[in-house]
């Protein structure tokens, strides 16, 4: 290659991959094996001591997963990455590497509901306390900072869609507080937005969604931006202190600007164990080859659908930042010039009954709880994912009775709109 930096589409197809050195296989092989033979005892010792690059056991690393990791790191503009079993596993390992019991982290109130659950309940039993802040009021992040704060967590575009987070502004607060900014970039993907350029120190993904993109594999990725100075204080001992697990090695000193990616692997994935199957890594890698093409089409289709719905007499409101006049349109113009993604919500004038009726009347849309599939997806949160919440809590969570969420697929836009049209006609 020339000295010129390869473009996004080239990286999406090539980064991290090369023809297999032994067989010449051009597609990345699925190394479906638990373990790898050592050349001799010295080689084994060097691998276990983190002295040499190489493969030991698929819970710690696998060559197929390694290609996925290097590719997502390249697409996000990070130094290194780690692929894990799910988006939630990625979040768990990130916080495990940063926090000890009694620590706090600040999280946006505008997050995927599953992440709100994970932070509020599951993390409590680890002694990690979440402090909520509202991205519509940036000063609430600053007010939430305490001496116990170890990290800030936001989503770039927040699920259930429509919210665009001002990452540069929140990054400034994180820098002032001396803590890393973690951005869940699942809904935007690096094609639409590279949060590292706006100050993210760690990026996480549910690769289950647009990275894989075809609704066939659960997976997660953690990207190290290489930007955070873990040794500036002694608040991140996994990185800055001698580790008893590795004979006193100091990971930041040893691995420099990719130390976080190594730490989540050798102190997180190794010990907590949510490894990604190499088969899933292969499926996600194959999906990523067309990431740019798909995200462009997803965004164009979503904008067309949002415009259609905004003009429909049975629709009360549409929350899509790609629409002129939307609350987040200015942020979308700044951060998402190529498009505002596929996922958004809208409200039906007919309320709860209309929502239930709509999801039962669609033919092309699939009624399910996922997003980020090639197929168009629909859900009525109040009757499904958010059913157990009180009416009041539903509204706060953006899942009021009239709300419908779409993940617009890459089918022909006329067919997507046509399906909504026939379904709306039945209300």
């Amino acid at each position, binding site marked *: 290659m020339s000295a010129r930096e390869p473009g996004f589409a080239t990286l999406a197809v090539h980064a*991290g991959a090369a023809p297999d*050195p032994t067989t010449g296989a051009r597609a990345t092989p699925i190394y479906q094996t638990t373990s790898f033979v050592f050349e001799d005892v010295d080689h084994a010792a060097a691998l276990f001591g983190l002295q040499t690059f190489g*493969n030991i056991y698929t819970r710690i*690393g696998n060559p197929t997963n390694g*290609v996925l990791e290097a590719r997502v*790191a390249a697409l996000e503009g990070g130094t290194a990455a780690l692929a894990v079993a799910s988006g939630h596993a990625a979040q768990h390992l990130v916080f495990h590497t940063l926090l000890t019991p009694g620590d706090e982290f600040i999280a946006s109130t505008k997050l995927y509901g599953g992440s709100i659950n994970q932070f509020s309940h599951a993390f409590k039993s680890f002694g990690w306390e979440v402090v909520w802040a509202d991205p519509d009021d940036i000063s609430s992040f600053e007010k939430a900072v305490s001496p116990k704060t170890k990290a800030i967590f936001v989503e770039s575009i927040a699920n259930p869609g429509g919210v665009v987070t001002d990452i540069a502004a929140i990054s400034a607060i994180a820098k002032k507080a001396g803590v890393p900014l973690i951005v869940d970039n699942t809904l935007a993907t690096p094609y639409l937005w590279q949060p590292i350029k706006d100050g993210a120190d760690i990026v996480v993904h549910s690769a289950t969604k647009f990275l894989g993109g075809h609704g066939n594999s659960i997976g997660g990725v953690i990207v190290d931006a290489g930007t955070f100075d873990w040794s500036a204080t002694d608040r991140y001992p996994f990185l800055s202190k001698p580790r008893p697990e590795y004979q006193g090695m100091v990971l930041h000193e040893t691995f420099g600007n990719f130390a976080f990616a190594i730490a989540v692997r050798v102190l997180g994935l190794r010990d907590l164990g949510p490894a990604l199957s190499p088969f899933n890594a292969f499926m996600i890698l194959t999906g990523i080859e067309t990431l740019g093409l798909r995200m462009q089409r997803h965004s164009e289709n979503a904008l067309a659908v949002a415009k259609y719905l905004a003009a429909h007499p049975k629709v009360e409101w549409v929350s899509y930042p790609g629409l002129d006049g939307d609350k987040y349109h200015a942020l979308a113009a700044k951060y998402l010039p190529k498009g505002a993604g596929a996922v958004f919500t809208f409200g039906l004038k007919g309320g709860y009954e209309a929502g239930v009726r709509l999801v039962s009347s669609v033919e092309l849309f699939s009624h399910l709880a996922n997003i980020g599939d090639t197929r168009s997806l629909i859900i009525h949160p109040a009757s499904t994912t958010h059913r157990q919440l009180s009416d009041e809590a539903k509204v706060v969570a953006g899942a009021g009775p009239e709300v419908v969420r779409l993940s617009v697929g890459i089918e022909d836009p006329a067919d997507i709109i046509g399906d909504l049209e026939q379904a709306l006609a039945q209300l």
Partner: protein
Amino acid sequence: MNHDSYEDAYIRAILDGVRTIAVVGASANPVRPSYLVMTYLAERGYTVYPVNPGQAGKVVAGLTFSRSLADVPVPIDMVDVFRAPEHVPQVLDEVLALAQRPKVLWTQLGVRDDAAAARAEAAGLQVVMNRCPKIEYGRLSGEIGWSGVNARTISARRPKLMGQGVQRLSIATRGPASER
């Protein structure tokens, strides 16, 4: 030359060309970065001489420590410096005083001294600063991708096995042997 960044071809030619490397400021402690670098380079086929007056004569991982660069028993192709930046001029003095001059002065990540670099270049040495030869080798061979690291290289050519076991890749220019 400018030392803010290097072309991959420049680094590859250096790492492909040198055979004997002296590591100044090497540690005998197996979890120190200098130890990890020198043992890795030795594993990848380089002849490595750790240099550290406090460890002179000690043998670690099959490598024998020398008291000084002048005490290294063979001609040195490359000197890799694991010392704080303020020591680089003095190391360079020792390099330039050697009977057979090394071809390359390399200083580790975080170690940069542009004045010393200019002096070394005027004396005919090639210089690499603020880089790690282990990372560069891992990047250019592709091995570092096994750890999920973004190697910032792209190639549709087949990587070459070193021929010394399966988990070792060479940095030799890729492609079919018949074309080389």
